[in-house]
């Protein structure tokens, strides 16, 4: 069976402002479809439309069966979700979930994602929520669809539901067989117009036949033969290539500009509205030439701006409401052992390989935008507000795009493209340069973290103080037992535009905590693994720690350390999953360069939906986390980013690849949790702890460096 490819194709062949009803009619073998054609469905919005700024949100609300599943008369099955695919594996995972409940092979499902006109709003693709929230909704909708199909089959065959056998889109009973297409009827239509009934049950984990098996992304062939259509590949009739004039530094405003520089340039068209200056041209080269010419004439009003050397002092000085004091400070001097430390975590960039991009097209006052965003419904709202448009006049389409990592929530390029397209009355595509990405996209927040704790004579934690300044509250709460504890997140005055990143502040909080725990273990003169196990109550986390340590050979290695090598361990729990990471490092004696040679990571996110996708996520998270651990850091001076390219920023490459052993625990005793984020939070502290083991030097900052 051939996988269904080019999902976008079937979406882009239709007119941008087609209605959902007309689209559904076009599915299948081009026939009028009873399900799609009914007045009931035609009146149905794909999702309850909420007002306000937060559309996109967290999703998970039930939707009518017809908004989730469509069966065509030829039996072809279309499933719709507002979630998007940016490499994290949602397309494969949701396809498996739908196939499981519909009792078909995954390649029989056509999954339409991230189209605000065709798909229900399942919330933004962030926060590791596809697995815990969207998958159950999809499964319930598909299970309800299967039950509706079964009910009609029972009527037709005059049998009981228990007598039916489902296989690959066909229903058999006592020598008779019906395909799903045979069941398309007014009755099915009526059943699909309902919400799934509360009595609908999804397939028990023990009975899974599709979920839990390795599955490669359904559009896999398009990725290797170059035919996959990324957002930056969208071409519309008459489309021009747009560029925006950027200020030279943060906080700068435009005083004046001389447009005569571009007036003589053939084919270049300019839009100047206040601080917004953009051009569009028949080629990117010409548009860039025009912007470069304009930039030479631009006069800017600059303002003083912080530089990265002053970053951490600035964040501490501007902690909102001041830095909370340690309520147990008086107990520290009396304790058997006490440690007080401060940790720093740098600003970093997501730097997805496909830069931010959008193509905008206006048709009769309505706007269609193709863009790579993790939040299609949120971007639709941004566009409605930016252009003061009534509801349902904006369609956002998100082709599977080139990486997000928490960095593509906002609609900046969508608004830029729409603005140029509106003014110039022709479609415009915007594709940011790498320098724009590194300067004007938002960053993972920098952090200052203060940690203080006292130990009793047995090595138990008697009091615990842990404060994150600026980066966020995620995973700020400690999983370690403590007699008394005080944790807090304190916002500050961020000098750069900051927002989400894969696992949010859990990267910073877990780094600081797990290095701090190692320092406590050292103070208590207890092995770091033993210290963790004795101070943790969470049985799942302890199990994961033991698994990682065992597979890594923690106890074997400890006794026979070579000079300039070391091993470190870290663990963590966030968003319902647990991990433990062991790392081995070697340090160059002369240059002090750190190489990570071997990593073992154990991970438990509940029942595994797609082992192939999960392995990719965990391997990728380890290596991506290695970048932030060792090198990635945004440097800025007077408001300008000074390492705004891959050469200077130096993300992980093949040469950095350690030997990686991933241990996935298929824990079928709990509900499934997301896995796109948490696997990134273990590697940096494990490396820092290994560097201490190798050199005796504690590094309390990310990136971890032994040189200045």
């Amino acid at each position, binding site marked *: 069976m051939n996988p269904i490819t080019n999902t976008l194709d079937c979406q882009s062949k239709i007119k941008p402002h087609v209605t959902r009803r007309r689209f559904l009619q076009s599915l299948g073998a081009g026939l009028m479809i009873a399900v799609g054609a009914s007045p009931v469905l035609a009146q149905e919005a794909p999702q309850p439309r909420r007002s306000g700024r937060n559309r996109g949100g967290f999703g998970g609300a039930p939707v009518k069966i017809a908004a989730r599943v469509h069966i065509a008369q030829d039996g072809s099955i279309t499933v719709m979700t507002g979630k998007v695919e*940016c490499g*994290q594996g949602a397309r494969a995972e949701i396809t498996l979930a739908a196939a499981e409940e519909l009792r078909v092979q995954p390649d029989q499902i056509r999954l339409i994602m991230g189209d605000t006109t065709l798909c229900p709003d399942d919330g933004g693709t962030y926060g590791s929520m596809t697995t815990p929230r969207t998958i159950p909704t999809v499964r319930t909708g598909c299970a309800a669809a299967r039950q509706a199909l079964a009910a009609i089959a029972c009527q037709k065959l005059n049998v009981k539901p228990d007598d039916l056998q489902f296989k690959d889109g066909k229903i058999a009973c006592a020598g008779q067989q019906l395909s799903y297409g045979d069941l398309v009827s007014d009755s099915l239509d009526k059943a699909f117009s309902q919400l799934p009934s509360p009595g609908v049950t999804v397939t028990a984990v023990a009975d899974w036949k599709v979920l839990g098996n390795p599955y490669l992304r359904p559009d896999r062939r398009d*990725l290797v033969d170059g035919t996959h259509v990324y957002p930056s590949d969208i071409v519309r009739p008459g489309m021009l290539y747009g560029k925006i004039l950027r200020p030279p530094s943060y906080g700068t405003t435009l005083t004046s500009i001389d447009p005569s520089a571009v007036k003589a340039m053939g084919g270049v068209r300019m839009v100047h509205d206040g601080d917004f200056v953009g051009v569009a041209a028949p*080629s*990117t080269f010409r548009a860039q030439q025009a912007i470069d010419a304009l930039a030479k004439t631009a006069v800017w009003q600059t303002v003083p701006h912080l530089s990265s050397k002053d970053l951490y002092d600035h964040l501490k000085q501007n902690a909102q409401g001041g830095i909370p004091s340690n309520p147990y400070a008086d107990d520290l001097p009396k304790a058997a052992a006490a440690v007080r430390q401060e940790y720093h975590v740098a600003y970093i960039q997501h730097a997805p390989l496909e830069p931010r991009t959008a193509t905008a097209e206006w048709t009769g006052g309505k706007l269609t935008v193709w863009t790579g965003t993790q939040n299609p419904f949120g971007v639709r709202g941004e566009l409605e507000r930016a252009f003061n448009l009534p509801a349902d006049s904006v369609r956002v389409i998100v082709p*599977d795009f080139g990486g997000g990592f928490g960095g593509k929530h906002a609609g900046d390029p969508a608004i830029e493209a729409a603005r140029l397209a509106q003014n110039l009355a022709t479609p415009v595509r915007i594709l940011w340069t*790498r320098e724009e990405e590194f300067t004007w996209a938002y960053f993972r927040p920098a952090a200052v973290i203060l940690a203080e704790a006292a130990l009793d004579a047995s090595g138990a934690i008697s009091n615990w103080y842990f404060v994150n300044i600026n980066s966020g509250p995620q995973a700020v709460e400690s999983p370690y037992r403590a007699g008394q504890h005080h944790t807090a997140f304190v916002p500050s005055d961020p000098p750069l535009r900051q927002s989400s990143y894969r696992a949010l502040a859990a990267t910073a909080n877990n780094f600081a905590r797990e290095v701090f725990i190692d320092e406590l273990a050292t103070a208590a003169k207890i092995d770091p693994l033993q210290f963790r196990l004795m101070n943790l109550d969470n049985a799942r986390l302890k199990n994961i720690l033991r698994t990682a340590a065992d597979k890594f050979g923690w106890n074997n290695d400890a006794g026979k350390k070579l000079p300039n090598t070391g091993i470190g361990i870290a663990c963590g729990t966030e968003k319902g999953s647990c991990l433990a990471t062991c790392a081995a490092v070697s340090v160059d004696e002369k240059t002090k360069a750190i190489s990570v040679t071997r990593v073992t990571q154990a991970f438990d996110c509940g029942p595994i939906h797609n082992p192939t996708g999960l392995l990719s996520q965990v391997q990728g998270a380890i290596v991506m986390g290695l970048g932030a651990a060792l090198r990635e850091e945004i440097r800025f001076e007077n408001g300008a980013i000074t390492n705004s*390219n891959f050469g200077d920023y130096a993300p992980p490459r*093949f040469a950095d690849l350690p030997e990686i052993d991933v241990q996935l625990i298929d824990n079928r005793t709990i509900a499934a949790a997301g896995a796109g984020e948490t696997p990134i939070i273990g590697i940096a502290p494990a490396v820092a702890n290994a560097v201490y083991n190798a050199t005796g030097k504690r590094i309390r900052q990310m990136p971890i460096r032994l040189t200045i």
Partner: protein
Amino acid sequence: MDSTVTLRVNDQRQIVTTDSQRTLLEILREDLHLLGTHFGCGAGDCGACTVHIDGQRAFACQTTAADADGKSITTIEGLAPNGRLHALQQAFMDEGAYQCGYCVSGMIMAAVALLDKNPHPTDAQIRAGMNPNLCRCCGYVKIVSAVRRAASAAEALPSLGR
């Protein structure tokens, strides 16, 4: 200044009138509509735009129209001219050596060039040879496996006809 350049792209002759300083990447994408070659950085730092020029791997973003004039260029679209995937395309697909997939065209073109020179590389040679190409999803483990899988496939790699 516009000039006319003649390219042989995936075995087809193409005559393009363009500014001689415009990049080959832009010509491929915007003039010839070969969208499988991707823009990642514009600086030769990431390899998303890797193509072959006269059989040698090259960054299309670092090649001007003037540089490419008269040359023979192979892009990802030229690797499977009859719809039969090249052994490396097949290996990347079967190995699941992609996450977002944006780097994959460049990775495959780099790997084809690597195996052309060294049909049976060690893992260390694969890493060194592939190092100019960046995968931001950091799926390097499976990419190394895919190159290894293609190299160890029993049948010889189909030649690109050079």
